[in-house]
């Protein structure tokens, strides 16, 4: 449910580090709490993002949630498949449900993220 090799944020995003870039998505807990995801708007490639600032909103039938970037940088890739078929996020939040890939400006920011174990603890509370 919470792959160990990923990093997590308190706002229920996960990050997969790939060299100088991170891939971001939302966790199993988040997709479950949202319910059926019906709409998602992702910013275009080239958009500058900041750590702890929302860069997208994700909509289910009953609610709207902000998606936060955990790092400062620039979006280098966007998963268009998920914008067209948001339900993929419910089905496969860590795989096909990835949202954006960001080129990091300062990888030190990753230190503020938490491990799978710590994340699981935080949601159990």
């Amino acid at each position: 449910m919470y792959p160990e090799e990923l990093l997590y944020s308190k706002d229920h995003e996960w990050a997969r580090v790939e060299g100088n870039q991170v891939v971001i998505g939302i966790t199993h807990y988040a997709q479950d709490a949202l319910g059926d995801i019906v709409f998602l708007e992702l910013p275009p490639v080239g958009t500058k993002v900041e750590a702890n600032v929302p860069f997208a909103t994700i909509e289910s039938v009953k609610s709207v949630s902000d998606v936060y970037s955990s790092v400062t940088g620039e979006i280098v890739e966007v998963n268009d498949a998920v914008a067209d078929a948001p339900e993929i996020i419910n089905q496969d939040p860590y795989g096909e449900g990835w949202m954006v890939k960001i080129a990091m400006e300062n990888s030190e920011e990753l230190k503020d993220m938490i491990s799978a174990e710590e994340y699981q603890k935080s949601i159990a509370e």
Partner: protein
Amino acid sequence: MDYIPHSNKEIREMLSFLGVKSLKDLYSKIPYEMKQKRELNLPEPLSELELLRRLKFISNKNTSVNRKISFLGAGNYDHFIPSVVNYIISHPEFYTAYTPYQPELSQGILQSMFEYQTMMCELTGMDVSNISLYDGATAVAEAANMAFSITGKKKVMVSETLHPEYRQVLKTYMKPRNIEVYETPMKDGVTDKTQVKKSLIEESSCLILSQPNFFGNLEPMDEIFSLLANSNTLAIACVNPISLALLKPPADLGVDIVIGDGQILGNPQSFGGPSFGFLTCKKKYLRKLPGRIVGQTVDSDGKTGYVLTLQTREQHIRREKASSNICSNQSLNVLAACVYLSYVGRDGLFKIAELCYRNAHYLFQKLIVIDGIQPGFNSKFFNEFVIHIDLNLNKLKNILSKKGILGPICLEKWYPTLKKKYLFAVTEKRTKDEMDLIIDTLFKALKIK
């Protein structure tokens, strides 16, 4: 549903259950010094007969378009309302229902709202509609809200020829968001195309035009909106829905959002309201549409049903990111419009629009040949027009009221340079005799002068 409040027996039972002796005891927590100790200063109750007599006395102080010949316009008009409209909307399930959107109970209302959305899209050529806003003025403001939400630009361009009170309401709505409202000037009674400058367009989220405009004149919408082509500035048109039976649908002119006031569709004038505002737009703006939207779906038995939908747009879920904080609409007025449009149909609406146009042009042509009357502008118009009359407002009102005629409206109070310019509205209700009466009255009045 019952409309009988609790009986004395039920009250006693409830008090007994709660363990209190009287209704007064329920307010025991309120400090003594804050309690009202005297009886309320209200008159004695009246019997039904006395009450009717009293209300009749008050209402007889008013007049109405049933007793006068009206040429009043400027946003609120005397159009024919078929009897079937009142018959249907008077059903208590429609007339007294409050927020009737629970699908298990309100399929009738929800379906009629869905039909209304469809009709408005057919009339305007737009893809989607909501189930109404308060009125035309706030619909303009909501469209401007959408434009800001979509483009992020903090300026709105609106023509000086849009209803002055709509522009006032727009400014009120834009003020807390620090959005500047720039009024583009007019020339000869229509928007001056040369004043719609490129730099202004770049800075503005939208350009709002009215069709016909406040003076009844037809704006060169295609020419002016084509100026927006290479920008992300939205084209917004505020339209007369009956005129749409004759004019090109705004969708054909690349308009992004179409709004307006729906009073003329089956709703009485009622001294200014209530009315409803309609808002339709292109599909790509669907998620920015404010207000309620009804969708068609199937229930658990696979039967067609109707529900409120896309509620994540609305402020009770989207909060500060929503286009608007509106969470209400005018469904009874909308139902009246829906019944009206169903009843007159496409052919009927065309005939009504045509009659309005012909009547107005008959009256205009006959008036401008009178000594002391000249055309106000050199523009094409639908069913409202402006003429100059060599009489001041009070004199004119006196002369016409003696003949049981209401109107026209003097434009000076909104446009100080338009002295002695009068706005006439002519609908399908005006007969040749009525029009000949005002022609004759004005002719004689100006001759004596």
